[in-house]
């Protein structure tokens, strides 16, 4: 069904599809002008006098779109004419494009992979999640439903998540303002991100500090400004950087402990008692593990009278100080400064956290 006549308009996906096909079969690659003159969707817009700036820009955008899908579109220097942009050739290696022949997944594996892709359906990796599920379906197997229905979500709602992932992939140095736990003033940091990890429900970025090269870990939810891409980074991350970052957080978690007592049958008793590695002694005394002193102090302060910190003394003091600050800020004597009336805003039904879990209505 060859097209006899050039159609007036070629759909975008037809142009992109034709570009992928043309580059997959051309062993030595095609130059930009060859592509624009011959490939379906470009050739219709190509005039004999050459490519217009518009057409070249269209090609640049198409390249990015195709790469975004994971298609390895490569540029190859012309050996006879190195460094010359006009003789640069574009190709897609079939070997690097297609799933290796020896990789296949069983129905059970596809089921697990689907579950894993689905956890990202909200937030900044949702496009990746959706695309990988299309690719999984392409591999053919029908999905095996698990016995128990799961709806698991990993959220990356921290605004810093997307720019940090970009910086990871581009190996850039970034700058942001950081509000260190336990402090009330933010400071500016300049670092090269090396890994993004989630530990105990919180996202951390592991980085190399620009000036000192020192490894620093930051909590994403404490990044309080936009993340600015500053310059190309110089550190080459290890292949298992994210595993190492998780192991460091785990090691911290294992090594640091605090002793608390909890009031039986309270929220604190149930939740702290089920925290990872918690040792429950008789009489309501718990040994808790933690990775960050100030985060733990915040968490314990939130439990108010349900928990008493025995040790370390510094933690006891930190929790006490937080409770006192809360009392001082909310006691009857300290009337709040009356602000200008807040402009009326529509109440969005955006409810998260634990506040709507059943017990409040039970």
């Amino acid at each position, binding site marked *: 069904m060859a097209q006899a006549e050039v159609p007036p308009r070629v759909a975008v996906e037809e142009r992109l599809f034709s570009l992928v096909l043309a580059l997959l079969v051309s062993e030595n690659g095609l130059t930009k002008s060859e592509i624009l003159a011959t490939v379906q969707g470009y050739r219709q817009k190509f005039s004999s006098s050459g490519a217009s700036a518009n057409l070249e820009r269209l090609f640049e955008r198409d390249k990015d779109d195709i790469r975004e899908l994971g298609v390895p579109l490569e540029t190859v220097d012309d050996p006879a004419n190195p460094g010359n942009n006009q003789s640069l050739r574009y190709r897609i290696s079939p070997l690097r494009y297609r799933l290796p022949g020896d990789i296949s997944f069983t129905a059970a594996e596809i089921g697990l992979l689907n579950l894993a892709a689905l956890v990202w359906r909200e937030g900044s990796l949702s496009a990746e999640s959706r695309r990988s599920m299309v690719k999984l379906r392409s591999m053919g197997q029908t999905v095996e439903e698990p016995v128990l229905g799961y709806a698991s979500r990993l959220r990356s709602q921290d605004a810093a998540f997307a720019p940090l992932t970009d910086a990871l992939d581009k190996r850039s140095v970034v700058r942001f303002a950081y509000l260190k736990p336990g402090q009330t003033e933010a400071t500016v940091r300049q670092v090269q991100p090396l890994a993004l990890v989630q530990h105990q429900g919180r996202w951390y970025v592991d980085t190399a500090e620009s000036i000192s090269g020192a490894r620093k870990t930051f909590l994403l939810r404490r990044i309080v400004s936009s993340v600015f891409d500053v310059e190309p980074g110089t550190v080459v991350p290890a292949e298992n950087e994210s595993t190492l970052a998780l192991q460091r957080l785990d090691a911290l978690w294992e090594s640091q402990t605090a002793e608390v007592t909890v009031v039986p049958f309270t929220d604190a008793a149930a939740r702290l008692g089920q925290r990872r590695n918690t040792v429950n002694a008789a009489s309501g005394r718990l040994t808790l593990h933690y990775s960050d002193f100030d985060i733990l102090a915040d968490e314990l302060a939130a439990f108010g009278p349900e928990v008493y910190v025995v040790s370390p003394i510094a933690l006891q003091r930190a929790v006490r100080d937080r409770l006192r600050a809360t009392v001082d800020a909310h006691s009857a004597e300290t009337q709040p400064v009356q602000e200008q009336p807040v402009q009326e805003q529509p109440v969005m039904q955006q409810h998260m956290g634990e506040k709507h879990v*059943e017990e409040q209505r039970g």
Partner: protein
Amino acid sequence: MAKRGAIHPANERLLFLLALVPWLADHDGVTVSQAAQHFAVTAEAVREAVRLIAVSGIPGETSQYQHGDLFDIAWDRFEDDDEIQFTNLVAIDNSPRFSAREAAAIIAGLQYLSGLPEAADRNAVDSLMVKLARGASGRPSQVAVETTDAGDTLHIIRAAVANDQQIEFDYVTAKGEREHRQVDPLRVESMDSDWYLRGWCHSRQAVRTFRIDRITDPELGTLPRSVHPEEVTLPETLFEGSPGDVVVSVDVAPQAMSLIADYLASPPSAIPIAQNTAEIVVPHFHAVKRLIAGLSGLVTIIDPPEARKVTADWAARGLEQYGKL
């Protein structure tokens, strides 16, 4: 680079074409509706894609897209019987690899879920991760997620579902009340490290959501489940507003606004930069006292006075334990 999160219809349609070709090639003579079902798209989307594929191809030696350079299908079968059979294939012979980010996302998802009973075989999960990394077109981005420690409760829930039995447990509410519950488990949900059970609660005669880390002494019940997942429609969102919700206005340092983002009455983007007040929505003041006591020095309640009092009392009772200092 294209902006992530935004949907690029043409981009997504290209991916569908690249995914559809190898699957159709492997399923000779499949019907349009079977393909639509497999890819979870409409039949018309499949037909459109097949029509496009069937006239696509490579420029070829003549650069003229000659007949042999194009895909082709058995048109009679397609038009008369809604069946798809390629008679010529071009350039594509297998599914596309995962992108570096896609592989990273799935690997991190697997790490997250590897504590579930479904993924009990650690070696199988590890080899799956290796396969994914090999099947990616670039080195997977360095993103990792801690494994969920499923604990006994999830195993008991799963056993209950497998045997179609109820489960029983003690549950502590945010108000500090402890109750024994009998529940028909329906679905397990999670958000990051917080896990929830949704089930039919027999004492409330309604679907309820329970935080798994507030469940104590869980055990298999003696009675069969009376409500099953297919008999109820669980809302997609875990939490919904309820008529009894209260609005609390707070004074918040602008740099700390993101820390209360989950509770804001309006999306953070709707709040003017440098504004230092915000409204948060909670089901009752006992929920807000825990939130505020955990954000000491950063967020202060302005109004209503009752919310300030509940919070001040909560913190004061906590402070009393440490005596006069």
